[in-house]
């Protein structure tokens, strides 16, 4: 690196320090701790393991059944396929030869070893909120893993997305670097929840809608988003479509076991529950719940479709024949087994993608140690026409006090055409 460039970066750093005083303060504290840092401390490795669990890093960086964090798992993006890199300490193909700064830069700023730009499939726009100490703990944990020699050519994107330099522009548009700053006036618990959700937990990666370039629609943060043929529900305090109808304890129960009074996790959230949230401490889950429930709900209240609507009448008849045996006449379901329809945020989600998919193709609920049943919904796509499926979905979205826009036969038809991503439950 030339002397001029070094000088320029130093100047930038000073400017950043002046602009971001609280973050700089935190950074200074963590750098002091780093004087004795060799990544061998038991406490630090354990904390790194916990943070890797919070971030569910294995979801991308471990191929199921293969060596942990050896990379190679395909990540489908709207722009093409990426393969997650090898994070083991192998010097040739992993991150063994990286310096601490390389690693911190990759996690916080999306710039890997040698300054290479990462694609934001690696959720550095969230991880940038993580403290340096936490990022180094993560590295300490990864450094303790068995080195695996596995060369991964991460970039499988088609032209022009395969040009990593294009991320410079993307970052300029959509990436706001900076550590998490506690909100004064909110409780420690709320701030801990905010840190976990906005930082390592990167909930918005799925639950925030993306623009056409894959950047977050920040004005609609955590209000739900499309992901791999599913729709990740609204996580705000919205009483109908979000978490407003669930108590803090019910959110905790859901994250811990995958199930609660109304809900059962399925689809990509199954993996999040099984590999991540079910292993977190009750205190952290509670903090997450407190923070999410405090997120302001969007201001719109759907009016229910009238029971006299022809689709509702058809839907009611289909519900009795096909659904009621498990989901019960009053839409209450069976706890830990069959999700409730009544008061279920997924059922009333603004976007019915998940509902259509589950009805047409079936799905399996997550199984956890606390709730091991893992019951499945059978596929109905072969049995119901588009119009019938639309009618019964409209019915469940607008019965027992539920309210959500009607589902059209065209919506169902689109869902039928959807390619089911490989490897997604």
């Amino acid at each position, binding site marked *: 690196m030339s002397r001029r460039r070094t000088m320029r970066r130093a100047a930038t750093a000073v400017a950043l320090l002046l602009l971001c005083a609280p973050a700089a303060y935190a950074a200074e504290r963590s750098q002091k701790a780093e004087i004795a840092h060799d990544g061998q401390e038991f406490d630090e490795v354990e904390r790194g393991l916990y943070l890797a669990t919070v971030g569910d890093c294995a979801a991308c960086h471990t191929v199921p059944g293969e060596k942990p964090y050896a990379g190679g798992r395909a990540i489908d993006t709207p722009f093409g396929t990426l393969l997650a890199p090898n994070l083991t300490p192998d010097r040739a193909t992993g991150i063994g030869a990286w310096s601490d700064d390389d690693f911190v830069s990759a996690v916080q700023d999306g710039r890997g070893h040698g300054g290479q730009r990462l694609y934001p499939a690696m959720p550095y726009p969230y991880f940038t909120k993580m403290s340096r100490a936490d990022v180094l703990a993560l590295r300490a944990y990864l450094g303790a893993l068995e080195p695996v020699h596995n060369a991964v050519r991460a970039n499988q994107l088609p032209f022009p997305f395969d040009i990593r330099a294009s991320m410079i522009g993307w970052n300029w548009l959509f990436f706001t670097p900076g550590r998490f700053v506690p909100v004064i006036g909110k409780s420690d618990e709320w701030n801990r929840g905010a840190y976990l959700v906005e930082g390592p937990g990167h909930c918005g990666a799925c639950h925030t809608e993306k623009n056409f370039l894959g950047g977050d629609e920040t004005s609609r943060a955590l209000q739900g988003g499309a992901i791999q043929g599913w729709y990740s529900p609204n996580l705000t305090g919205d009483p109908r479509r979000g978490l407003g109808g669930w108590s803090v304890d019910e959110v905790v129960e859901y994250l811990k076991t995958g199930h609660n009074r109304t809900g059962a996790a399925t689809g990509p959230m199954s993996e999040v529950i099984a590999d991540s949230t079910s292993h977190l401490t009750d205190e952290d889950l509670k903090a997450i719940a407190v923070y999410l429930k405090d997120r302001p709900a969007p201001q719109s209240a759907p009016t229910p479709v009238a029971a006299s609507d022809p689709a509702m009448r058809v839907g009611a008849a289909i519900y009795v024949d096909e659904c009621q045996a498990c989901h019960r006449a009053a839409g209450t379901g*069976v706890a830990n087994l069959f999700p409730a329809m009544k008061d279920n945020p997924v059922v009333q989600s603004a976007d019915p993608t998940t509902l259509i998919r589950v009805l047409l193709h079936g799905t399996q609920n997550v199984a956890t*140690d606390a709730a091991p*049943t893992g019951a*499945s919904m059978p*596929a109905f796509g072969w049995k119901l026409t588009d119009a019938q499926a639309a009618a019964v979905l409209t019915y469940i979205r607008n019965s027992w006090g539920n309210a959500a826009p009607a589902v059209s036969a065209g919506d169902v038809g689109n869902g039928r055409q959807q390619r089911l991503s490989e490897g997604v439950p």
Partner: protein
Amino acid sequence: MTQKLPATDAVIIGLGWTGSIMAEALTRAGLNVVAIERGPWRDTATDFPTTYAQDELRYHIRHDLFLRPAQETMTFRNNAGQTALPIRTWGSFMPPNGVGGGGVHWNAETWRFLPSDFQLRSHLTQRYGAKFLPADMTIQDWGVTYDDLEPHYDKFEYLCGTSGKAGNIKGANQEGGNPYEGARTRDYPTPPQKQPYGPSLFADAARSMGYKPFPQPSGNLSQAYTNWLGVTLGPCTYCGFCEWFGCGNYSKASPQTTLLPVLVRRPNFEARTRCEVVQINLDKSRKRATGVTYVDVNGKSWEQPAGLVLLCAFQLFNVHLLLHSGIGAPYDPQTGTGVIGRNYSYQVTSSVNAFFDNQNFNPFISSGAIGMCIDDYNGDNFDHGPHGFVGGGYMGAVQTNGRPILTTPTPKGTPSWGAAWKKAAAEHYLSTYQFVTHGSCYSYRDAYLDLDPTYTDRLGRKLLRITFDFHENELKMSQYITDRLADIVQKLQPRTMEKNPRKGPYTTTIYQTTHTCGGAVMGSDPKTSAVNRYLQSWDVSNLFVPGASAFPQNAGYNPTDTVCALAFWAADALVNQYLKSPGPLVQA
């Protein structure tokens, strides 16, 4: 060419009820367990989802869930004077296939046997004298008592969430339950299922005659239930597609709905499906099993060495594999010596069909195990002195199904097809009720299993041969209890009534029940039993053989509760005695 695999701690042959129970206990104890299952993996939403679980043609007529005779069958004859022929279409019993075994397609009638059933020969001899029993009747005591098994019955019922009403809690009579049952430590985990009209009428009539009707204990649950493994079952919807069918609603107790969700999460458990064990291997001493040899779906042969072998297949196939592996002395009916194949028994069922005017029973509102029963004529609950037979059965109004193809009762004399049949079927569907008895079947010197001299299976092994017929004692019993049932039905004033007591000879072509029993029976004497009171082989101490094959004779109840209580009992002995000190748990 057989390829040898790395050894495991325990190998389980067959992943039905007993295999799953054993696998749970052994994996919990920390053992590495490999279960080898001849049939496919079976999963509720994939194999019998609510969207088509109620397909009578597929599951009942075409036997979707059952073993294919082309894969394995057995030959049958009524007596040693006949030449046995292969069974090419299942009839009187339905051998299960695939993960979950018979637990997938049972009706879930979850009965305990009576305390006296376990000490049958001593009990009957003491009460009536040895001469009261037919000379060729080979009934014997089990080597375990009801009290031994009580905690294990309890464990199975609380695994399943069984719906019922206790009649006897710790010796105290409970109004509304079965007054004849052995003492239980606590009530059923869930209340009885709701009773339809027919069972309610039967109960009223029985009560008016001084009997004590009670709800049949049911593994189709009255309400949602989470068992001691944390697995949740749903409430039954009374669809009436239980026996012969898998339950799409997660409401019938089965390995799938109670045990397998936990087992598949254990890293020390592995299941190999579509793999058929062809032999249990022994060392040179022939006192120790070294593992099993199995054939996979490609026809490739594998040896799986194991420290423990658990033979958990269906009753008939347990006996078949013991005979093939040369474990224990084969039974010889001429001399009455040998134990493998000895005391084969069955179940003696009968019915009373009643045709009513102006009654509507809505037979389609049903579950495999709802119903109101009386137990006054079961086992030795009544004095047999005047009757000249032993045994008995429960009886009652058990509304298992109103399925459209086969449950269309018509009076005798109705043509079996055409316009007249259609008219009669339509007339009688709602207003006809079939009341049933479920009787005991005791064992005899001439009822046994051995290897057929002529017919072989697809792997070249000799088929199992069944030699069996009903005996006069059983036919008298059936006549007597069917008459008593008819007395109660008469109270309901049907227009006409048809009594169908069981008649001989036994035939494998007409469905009766799948309750084949015996052939590797348990007991206290190695001369008359294949396994000891812990279901451990007398000959090979690291081999255990759970299942109805251990029944020395069959009682007047459905066997599953007892089969599974015995499996828990054996698993408890394995974990708490055998693993601490391997070797024979009972000295011969």
